[in-house]
């Protein structure tokens, strides 16, 4: 029998607000443990939460970008469970009446038709702290808790069970990450856990519509790990079903070192969270006016930008795709392209030399000394024939290092290309005069001699002669001799 996987994803998106969701503590990553805390996020007796308005705004942005319907009222609810990194012993989240529902994302995989993935709901919640067990500074029978992350705002995006392959899940995650980065609501930093994904998967015989028993996969810390864990789990379930077994509903933890998913102890997930509306917080009400205000300030999203780049700058789809993968690269390109005539050349330089150099130098675009204005200057120097293509690469590297303007570098290094007609004619004439035998060879029909002449001319000019001019003048003069 052939089976079809049915996959759903739950993605936690850590918002990049300055302050926490229910208090004014900083959300900065990597601070000294337990230094970014106050009575509210520490859950001290008597303290009360107050919702950060920025979180509402960010939730609206993501809801609009994913086509979700924003509920007029949504309820903040308590999810009750005991754990040392959860100071109140409940997490403020949303359960019944979430912030937004019924959206979708379209996932594209090359060579396949687009897939529409439904979004069940988007809700806001607070993050928990971090428990430390096996670090060097933790005693043998101890666990330590860092509460800094407590109260960092999260949006949870729950998808419908619409994925049929792990690859679709991967592409969805990449796309979702791109959207939240574009929206400016998340830094997209995977190492710092800014996006975290849990998956659930079940199998069913192809052609049937009822859902099989699902398992939940946790502990994947990259999108590739999600893809791998799903592949692993689909294979595992397939083997069980093919051997006539039944799937046990359970939560599995992905072990990235060993590439296996292992069952969590039953006890740890058989929670009854006893959700109920948090009486400390009024329901969130969103009017059409509130939503429109946010909509007006939503930045251009990747798809729209891609299409615009193709239209406005006449770029091929591939270029537009690569350039819009990150809003920063797109911005860099746009700032460059607006300053030059040859848009495609700008695209080529950014996709090629620039992105490669960033990687090699392990630098971020915003730290770069070679600004879009400098790159445009460099491209204009090439366009106008002021420097040669080979010199351009040298100028580019120098500008990355020193941050000096390309024009200044060209001057300092004497890279100015000789485009003066008279000057080039003189040099060409002198080379022809010095080599009468080779001229005769050419006149007898040996075209290869042309390369020799060009080599001689370039040597005489230290490579600064404009090759196009050299070529046409040389041909013209030789043609005159043949008459």
């Amino acid at each position: 029998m052939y089976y079809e996987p049915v996959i759903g994803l739950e993605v936690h998106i850590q918002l990049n607000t300055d302050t926490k969701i229910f208090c004014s503590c900083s959300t900065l990553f990597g601070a000294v443990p337990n230094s970014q805390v106050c009575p509210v996020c520490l859950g001290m007796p008597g303290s009360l939460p107050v919702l950060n308005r920025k979180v509402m705004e960010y939730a609206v942005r993501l809801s609009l970008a994913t086509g979700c319907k924003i509920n007029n009222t949504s309820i903040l609810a308590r999810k009750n469970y005991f754990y040392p990194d959860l100071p109140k012993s409940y997490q403020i989240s949303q359960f019944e009446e979430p912030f937004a529902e019924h959206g979708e994302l379209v996932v594209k995989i090359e060579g396949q038709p687009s897939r529409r993935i439904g979004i069940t709901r988007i809700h806001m919640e607070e993050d928990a702290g971090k428990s430390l067990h096996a670090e060097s500074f933790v005693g043998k029978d101890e666990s330590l808790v860092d509460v800094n992350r407590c109260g960092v705002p999260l949006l949870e995006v729950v998808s419908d069970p619409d994925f049929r392959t792990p690859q679709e899940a991967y592409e969805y995650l990449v796309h979702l990450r791109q959207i939240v980065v574009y929206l400016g609501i998340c830094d997209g930093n995977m190492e710092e856990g800014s996006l975290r994904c849990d998956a659930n998967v079940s199998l069913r015989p192809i052609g049937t519509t009822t859902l099989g028993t699902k398992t939940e996969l946790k502990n994947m810390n990259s999108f590739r790990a999600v893809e791998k864990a799903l592949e692993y789990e689909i294979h595992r379930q397939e083997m069980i079903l093919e051997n006539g077994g039944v799937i046990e509903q359970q939560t599995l933890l992905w072990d990235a070192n060993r590439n296996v998913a292992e069952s969590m102890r039953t006890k740890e997930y058989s929670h009854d969270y006893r959700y109920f509306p948090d009486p400390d917080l009024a329901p969130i009400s969103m009017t059409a006016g509130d939503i429109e205000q946010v909509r007006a300030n939503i930045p251009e999203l990747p798809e729209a930008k891609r299409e615009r780049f193709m239209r406005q700058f006449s770029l091929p789809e591939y270029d537009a795709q690569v350039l819009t993968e990150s809003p920063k690269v797109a911005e860099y390109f746009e700032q460059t392209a607006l300053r030059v005539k040859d848009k495609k050349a700008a695209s080529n330089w950014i996709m090629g030399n620039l992105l490669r150099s960033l990687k090699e130098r392990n630098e971020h675009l915003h730290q770069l000394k070679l600004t879009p204005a400098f790159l445009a200057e460099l491209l204009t120097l090439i366009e106008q024939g002021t420097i040669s293509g080979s010199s351009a690469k040298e100028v580019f590297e120098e500008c990355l290092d020193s941050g000096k303007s390309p024009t200044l570098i060209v001057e300092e290094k004497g890279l100015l290309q000789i485009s003066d007609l008279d000057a080039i004619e003189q040099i060409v004439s002198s080379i022809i005069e010095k080599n009468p035998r080779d001229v005769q060879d050419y006149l007898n029909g040996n075209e290869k001699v042309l390369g020799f002449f060009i080599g001689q001319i370039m040597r005489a000019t230290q490579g600064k002669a404009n090759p196009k001019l050299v070529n046409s003048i040389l041909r013209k003069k030789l043609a005159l001799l043949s008459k």
Partner: protein
Amino acid sequence: MQLTDLDYTSLRKRIVGREITCAQLVADYLDNIREKKPLNAFISVFEKDARQRAEEIDRKISANNAGALAGLVLGIKDLIVLSGAPTTCGSKILSNFISPYDATVIKKLAQADAVFIGKTNMDEFAMGSSSETSFSGAVKNPTATDRVAGGSSGGSAAAVAGNLCTAALGSDTGGSIRQPASFCGVVGIKPTYGRVSRFGLIAYASSLDQIGPLCKSVDDAASILNVISGYDHLDSTSANQPTEDYTTYLNRDVKGLIIGLPKEYYGAGLDPEIRQNIENRAAQLGKAGAEIVEVSLPHTEYAIAAYYIIATAEASSNLARFDGARYGVRAEKVMDLEEMYVKSRTEGFGSEVKRRIMLGTYVLSSGYYDAYYRKAQKVRTLIRQDFNNVFAQVDCLLTPIAPTTAFRLGEKIDDPLTMYLSDIYTVSCNLAGLPGIALPSGADSHGLPIGLQLLGKPFSEGKLLQVADFLEKLN
């Protein structure tokens, strides 16, 4: 006549007139606290701080820049936090807890130059109607020390009635200010939900809790309410509604006011002496030009059930943070995390608190949520509607506070259901978020104080004070 017998309004005149000093007043109260230690009204006393603060305020008075409540010596129910001071909630689990911050009401009162003399005893986590469940022992009624002071703000009521402080803060979740005020013969106000910030009040049931004063006169209640009410950006449930000067409602008459007597509050189970007392008061109001009408609050009989479901549900979650992990008492010699939780909570909480946590956990559990919690919320809506309907006809309601006067210590402590049922006249007010006042109204044949209750629509504290003040001054 001792100074400590006087209400704040009388004391203030003498303090501002330099007849007496705050320091002298604090010293007198401290003497009384020592003398009446058996009342068990205080859990902690800030002797040194209070004396020092009183001297500071005396200097301010000399310089003519003292605040609105200069010389008011306050007891604070031990579930309102003061920075650097112990706050136990009458529980073993918080017996070592020192708060790192001040409640909003504490900030406001300190700014108005009130003096905090100590933290008052209470039922553990405000769960009780007799102040017998405290880890620090039962509070005794100053009028008859074999009787309960009422609860849960029994320590605050006893401290005021016993002249251990000028006034005290309490909290009221289902009658916890009004019932002890009534049992001890003092004035108590439970303000409209949201009128006073809950920031720094350790929650029992967040949607019902409200801080209010217990004091010796309606005048005092108005003065204190003036200071503690108002919107607080730290409490999302506080009402963004302008405050008013409540003292402007004093010394008025009651001509033309319509006062309702809800018939469900005068049924079987009400002590005939209390009924007679309140009917006499109604007659007095009628004579003074108020119109007295009988009204009906038909869903009253469901109030107790709804209250104990909602309050315990919220409590089960509110009290989950007391787990021994970060503050409070942690059980020793535990093998693992689960044992730490179980032992700390088993040892740290008393039996009434455990009973309510279990009840609340049960009603929120999957499979039972709809039958209990959700249904109770619907009943709550119906009760609120009952009041809306009635307040379309009347200005306020006049009712008893409890079916009986103060009962004997130990009399009901082993019979939780009877204890819960004695909250019948007070819980609806919290479910509907209304303001309510408890006013002393003489005594029964045993000499025990009788209290009457006035209920009004949201934010009608002024009108309630007006009627209470009128009744108080009739005597």
